[in-house]
């Protein structure tokens, strides 16, 4: 158990193994670890960016949704307004039409009535004449007494 040349040889062997480790073992392991670290960092960064853009997309989506809702509400309101206007217009038009129809109907009716009245007058006058002639048993010359008949008829 003396100190001897073993010490020197062990120091040399130690140096050799440290060199081997320094040259061949340490660098590949460390570079793999560093590479993975970088990759993870990049992955985390990308995830964060994705999160951010998701957030942004959500905001945009919400904004657009709000706008779309407002627009839809606008459109509905406009449509409502327009429909009520159309309804109104139609009402007015229909009322006017109805009035017109009624007017023309009443005019026609009046005309008809007048015409009928006229006819009735005619018929009545001829009936009267016929009756009167039967009563007086005398032929009344219609032509002669046209004026009289007319007058009578008008008096009816």
């Amino acid at each position, binding site marked *: *158990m*003396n*100190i*001897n*040349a*073993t*010490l*020197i*040889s*062990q*120091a040399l*062997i*130690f*140096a*050799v*193994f*440290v060199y*081997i*480790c*320094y040259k*061949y*073992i*340490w660098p*590949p*392991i*460390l570079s*793999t*670890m560093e*590479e*993975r670290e*970088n*990759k993870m960092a990049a992955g985390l960064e990308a995830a964060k960016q994705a999160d951010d853009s998701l957030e942004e997309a959500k905001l945009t989506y919400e904004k657009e949704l709000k706008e779309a809702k407002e627009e839809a509400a606008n459109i509905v309101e406009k449509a409502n307004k327009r429909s009520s206007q159309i309804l109104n217009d139609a009402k007015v038009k229909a009322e006017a039409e109805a009035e017109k129809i009624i007017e023309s109907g009443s005019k026609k009716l009046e005309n008809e009535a007048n015409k009928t009245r006229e006819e009735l007058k005619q018929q009545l006058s001829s009936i009267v004449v016929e009756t009167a002639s039967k009563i007086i048993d005398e032929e009344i010359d219609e032509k002669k007494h046209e004026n009289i008949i007319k007058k009578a008829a008008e008096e009816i």
Partner: protein
Amino acid sequence: MAKELTSKSYIDHHLTNLTCGKTESVGWTCDHNYYDEMGFMAFHVDSITISILLGVAFVALFKLIKLNPADQKPTRMQNFVEMCVEFVNENIKSIFGSTDNKLIGPLALTVLIWVFFMNLMDLIPVDFLPELTKQVSYASGIVDDPNDAYFKFVPTTDPNITLGMALGVFILTIFYSIKIKGLGGFIAELTLHPFGKFAIPFNFALEIMQLLAKPLSLGLRLFGNLYAGEMIFILIALLMFFQSAVFGVLGLGLHLLWALFHILVVSLQAFIFMVLTILYLSMAHETGDH
């Protein structure tokens, strides 16, 4: 001429390295009877062999695993390896702050895993490998007496191994001290504090002691812990000498307890060795403000 097996010879056998060295009388030999004659030119073949094998195991474990590229799921072994690297890196970061020193990471990783592996040998039952060596060398005729075949299989219970690594760290500290602070700065650090330029010899004596104490304590701490642990395993194994069932069961129980506790020591000492390595190197990088 088989020696009688006593508890002393049992312990001695466990604490003796398989040593090869150069002697004046017979030249290169691995015969332990010439151990004292070898002097400094002796190599603990067992410690060196096991430590090299474990170093190779470390390199193989960390090099041969499949490293999936970053965009794929890492394999299980890759996770383990990356965990080790991460652990080492975190320790470096907490001690160094930030550094662009490219050597400190691999150095700390090598220290951590290699020392851990070497310490782990302590958990192999104390008699397995020595007995195996005994039988193999006796059967193959390398030794006449099986008790002359030694094999100490925990490298970190050999002060040469721990101090050898500490020496490596020490050389690196000196190198970086000079590299960062310049030779002048390094010498100034050694001589000009704590008492200014009027007490240079005293300062130097203090600082050089401080400088040398670092590697010495670094190596001896690891050695001491593991040696003591190994020693206790051997002592527990001695219970078997009583040849009684009660002591046998007691010995098994104690072995289990000590082995469980030793798992902590094994990993803790590897960790401490690594942390101190990083710490000494970071001190070498510190400039000024003393």
